């Protein structure tokens, strides 16, 4: 806020307390979870002495490791394709005019606002019908698995990536691209040497978002996963519904740490890029 007035007296104390409470609210559960993952007690919320056994159990559990592997593989494929398609969409919307542009713009927003559940149902029905048609027409028998999950993740991630890259593109003056062309660059070279370096932070942000959303996803993945194909969140979700055990604590903490690592890495990357 420009020319902001510093709060005084009672309101200042109230605001500060509210602020600290919010942060406490945010971080207490996470901190407690980490603490309890080292607890010896079979009861997940009780402290019973320090142990690493739950982490050992995770490493031993082939199901868990399998699920983790799948999550990562899917996330990588999904991120790469979503970033490419999302960036192209952003460029099309911000730098060009064409027939049907408004429809495209609206279409890109739909996956963002649609509730998880509806999208899960949509894709479940879609793959069901799609496989049936393939079977009836061509005798090809496909099953849900890696690709049904990946395709589903890409379907919503394109929109998210494009929103982030678009924001970056919109903030970038078209002067720069005009200057590049004025200085003898071809359209492609202008993109490569001027536009691309400028939107790179946006692309990186979009990539991070896509990866996070893919790694996080539960409902949609649950619906379009096939037998033998599960991702870590779906696996954990299943465990939780069966009954809470401390093993889940340790897996959760591992997931927590890896997301924080991802975020930390990207923040670092942005800082070096900005300073450089």
């Amino acid at each position, binding site marked *: 806020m420009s020319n902001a007035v510093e709060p005084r007296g009672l309101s200042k104390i109230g605001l500060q307390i509210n602020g600290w409470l919010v942060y406490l609210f945010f971080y207490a559960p996470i901190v407690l979870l980490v603490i309890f993952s080292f607890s010896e007690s079979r009861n997940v919320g009780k402290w019973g002495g320090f142990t690493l056994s739950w982490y050992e159990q995770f490493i031993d559990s082939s199901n868990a490791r399998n699920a983790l592997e799948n999550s990562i593989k899917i996330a990588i494929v999904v991120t790469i394709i979503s970033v490419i398609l999302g960036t192209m969409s952003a460029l099309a919307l911000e730098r060009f005019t064409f027939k049907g542009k408004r429809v495209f713009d609206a279409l890109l927003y739909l996956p963002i606002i649609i509730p998880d559940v509806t999208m899960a149902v949509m894709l479940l029905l879609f793959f069901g019908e799609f496989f049936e048609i393939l079977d009836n027409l061509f005798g090809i028998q496909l099953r849900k698995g890696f690709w049904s999950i990946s395709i589903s993740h890409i379907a919503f991630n394109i929109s998210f990536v494009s929103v982030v890259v678009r924001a970056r593109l919109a903030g970038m003056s078209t002067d720069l691209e*005009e200057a*590049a062309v004025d*200085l*003898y*660059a071809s359209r492609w070279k202008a993109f490569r*040497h001027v536009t691309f*370096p400028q939107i790179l932070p946006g692309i990186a942000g979009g990539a991070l978002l896509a990866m996070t959303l893919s790694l996080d996803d539960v409902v949609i993945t649950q619906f379009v996963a096939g037998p033998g194909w599960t991702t870590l969140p779906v696996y954990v979700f299943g465990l939780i519904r069966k009954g809470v055990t401390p093993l889940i604590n340790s897996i959760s903490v591992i997931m927590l740490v890896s997301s924080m690592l991802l975020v930390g890495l990207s923040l670092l990357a942005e800082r070096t890029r900005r300073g450089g």
Partner: protein
Amino acid sequence: MTAAVELKGITKKFGDVTAVDNVDLTIEDGEFFSLLGPSGCGKTTTLRMIAGLEFPTEGSLSIFGEEVGTLAPNKRSVNTVFQNYALFPHLTVLDNVGFGLKMQGVAKKETKERAMEMIELVQLAGLETRKPSQMSGGQQQRVALARALVNQPKVLLLDEPLGALDLKLRQEMQLELKKLQRDVGISFVFVTHDQEEALTMSDRIAVMHEGKLLQVASPEEIYESPANRFVADFIGRTNLLDGTTSDNETVVLSNGTSIRAQNTFPQGTKVSISIRPERTKITQRSESSDPLSSIQGTVETITYLGNARVYGVKFTWLSIEVREENRPGLEVFNVGDDVTVHWEHDAISVVED
């Protein structure tokens, strides 16, 4: 000698809006040429068409005799200095300046040498490893100049390059640009809305308004002999007195006063008389002055400018501004004084509305 830039019948329409309306223009080689006019008059659009950043809707545009109107900008031997410089933020000054050479495929070593030469020419030596964000506005502007000139363009285009600078710096840069143009020798096409700037720097000025070209002439001619009312009003300060021609020597003002003003218009044409404030003299009310080149009036306002005084003199419902330099010994008048304002009859111009 072939003209550097020639526009014939150039028109640019954006949908229903005509931004540039049937412009014919010739820019000679080696001249400092300004496109002058208020915002939205089409001067920037015209410049962009020369650069190739817009294609004309109609007309012929040639550079040194070769038609280039529909040629892509990266194939024309002209370069542009943009209004906000458009320096590439992620590249150093050296890489910015060498960008055009790199795009043309010039070898790395030669690119670096030529870029450094240019950087020294604009007096930025030692700063080549900096990024644009680490430089002042004036420095950024020199980088933009160097980046354009290093490619040895046939014509340099400048889109209001001094707009973002503060007054003192702008005046310095005006002189520097003029000198640079003389040194480099190519034509500079300079877009501005500041008429004082155009008068200071240009060999010739083209005044534009609402897409149309109103007058192309030297600064003196534009100032002394404006082609129409808009030009007279836009350039410098002037008194515009409306009236009608009664013959080739006389114009009758709207309040009935007759003024001696030579003109070539048919009788009864609606015109305006343009009298520059500094070409008038103010004296105490006297009857001996030439009634056809003076008016009797009363001082209504006085503005003290330090180096001059501007008197607003009212006669009937019209008023006229008189600018008197603040010289010692010169008679000073007060509000309410009865005065006579005189001028030389050939110091005024008659323009059609």
